[in-house]
């Protein structure tokens, strides 16, 4: 007869903890998301498709997705490198470096947005350097990419770090005694062990980047079809009091992020199976 819905327990506080959990979860998260889906349902699938199926919306969704993917790939490589350096090497200033990794989590997105714009604007410290070689960063897609790299930077490093700490040295020694070069050991022994955690971090960075708003809008320039991101379209629809349009784009964004998370979970299950339980 399967497990009972709730196993009897002498532990106190069931009613109170369950009540607080379900009530707050409903008010803060579930009812609002339900309201979005309900609005979409009453607007109708056909109408929603009409809103989304416009060049301006497609290009914004595609831009958000493409640049988020690029930023997440950069952070995947740089994050694994950071985690390795922070765990395995001892050098002066390591603690400061370790704390600096978390800065993008702690710094408010609007602050990051105006700071990055000040740096990469044509008259800014990095922007003027780029201008000399003929590259414009702020108010182009490059600027958006840099903002997305900034907000996603800590995810991969922070998920991979504990895994590197737990790797047993014996595994590497065994590999070395069998005649593997250091590079071969890193490539075929260490990297596969890090893959599931790195993918988790990659997924988190990607999900964060697709929905990111605050750090991007200042540096993006927000030119339709060129540097307009999907979340900005929702804000524009809301400013025009077009709630149905906003709901349609919002649901499209929800679907994209869930599809991405699902895909990443499947990849993770596959990689765990291929490598064994790590």
């Amino acid at each position, binding site marked *: 007869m399967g497990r009972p819905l709730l196993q009897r327990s002498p532990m106190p506080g069931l009613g109170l903890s369950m009540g607080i959990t379900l009530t707050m979860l409903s008010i803060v998260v579930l009812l609002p998301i339900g309201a979005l889906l309900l*609005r979409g349902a009453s607007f109708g699938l056909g109408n929603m498709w009409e809103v989304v199926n416009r060049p301006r919306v497609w290009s914004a969704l595609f831009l958000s997705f493409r640049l988020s993917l690029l930023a997440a790939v950069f952070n995947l490589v740089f994050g694994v490198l950071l985690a390795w350096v922070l765990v395995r090497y001892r050098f002066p200033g390591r603690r400061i470096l370790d704390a600096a990794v978390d800065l993008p989590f702690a710094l408010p997105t609007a602050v990051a947005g105006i700071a990055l714009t000040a740096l990469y604007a044509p008259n800014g410290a990095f922007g003027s350097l780029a201008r000399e070689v003929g590259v414009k960063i702020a108010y182009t897609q490059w600027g958006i990419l840099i903002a997305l790299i900034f907000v996603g930077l800590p995810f991969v490093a922070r998920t991979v770090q504990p895994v590197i700490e737990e790797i047993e040295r014996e595994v590497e020694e065994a590999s070395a005694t069998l005649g593997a070069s250091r590079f071969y050991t890193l490539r075929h022994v260490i990297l596969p062990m890090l893959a599931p955690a790195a993918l988790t971090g990659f997924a988190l960075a990607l999900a964060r980047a697709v929905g990111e708003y605050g750090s991007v809008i200042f540096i993006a320039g927000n030119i339709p079809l060129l540097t307009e991101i999907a979340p900005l379209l929702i804000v524009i629809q809301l400013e025009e009091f077009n709630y149905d349009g906003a709901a349609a784009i919002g649901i499209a964004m929800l679907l994209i992020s869930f599809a991405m998370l699902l895909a990443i979970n499947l990849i993770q299950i596959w990689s765990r199976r291929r490598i064994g339980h790590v």
Partner: protein
Amino acid sequence: MFDAGVKLPVPAKAPRFRPATQESPAVRWLLIGIAVLGLAVLVVAPLAAVFTEALAKGWAAAVTSLTHKDARDAIRLTLLITAIAVPLNAVFGIAAAWFITKFDFRGKAFLITLIDLPFSVSPVVAGLCLVLLFGANTALGGWLVAQGYPIIFALPGIALATMFVTFPFVARELIPVMIEQGRVEEEAALTLGASGWRIFWTVTLPNIRWALLYGVLLCNARAMGEFGAVAVVSGKIRGQTATMPITIEMMYNEYLSVAAFSLAAVLTALALVTLLLKTALEIRHADALAATHRH
């Protein structure tokens, strides 16, 4: 056999020995160099830019801009919102962690997924959801406005938006810690006749206090700086619904660069304090924090 008189030839200098489980020094320093340079450009430079822009016209201008009414109102509102949202989310986190780790029920994994949901929803979409539930032109929102309790473009909406985006922080930190600690101590207290609240205050809370503080710290940092979700629900009314990040945006768009960056510098300083406290917790109480944060 072994004649003490025979001296084995000793090489003048032993060849340098490198363990097989280490990279060569050249590779090591190259990787460290890339890490330091990357973080300096990507993270430290924007941090420095906040302060240099704030002080572009000197200390006096920066301080004067902070005493302006808009800036003071924004600081007051942000503190108020944080004082509402963070304790409520802490209560939720404790209740959810207790419910999930002290009882066995079906659908536990699903519940944890729902609690994590806000991390995969764009803040702007979160704000949109709240507008569609509580906005003045919806059934519920219209009724609340008629009763004299507007939610959207008012304080409750900003608090709800802030709670939405910071919802999982405390629960996520407490659940792994409480799973690891198990129920043995609570069960022992129970057999000794302690009441539920007594068990919580004298057994559970001392065990989870550092993890709780850690979660509250992360929740607080995000709550003070939330922009996207708040921007959608706040209406950006000066002196009433403009939080610090919203005011920074308004000043920046009005080309009040020094004022915008001065207010940003205050938030940045708070972020640095958060990082400092977080690092201190990680060093001193590593064992009491969730496994993923162990150093």
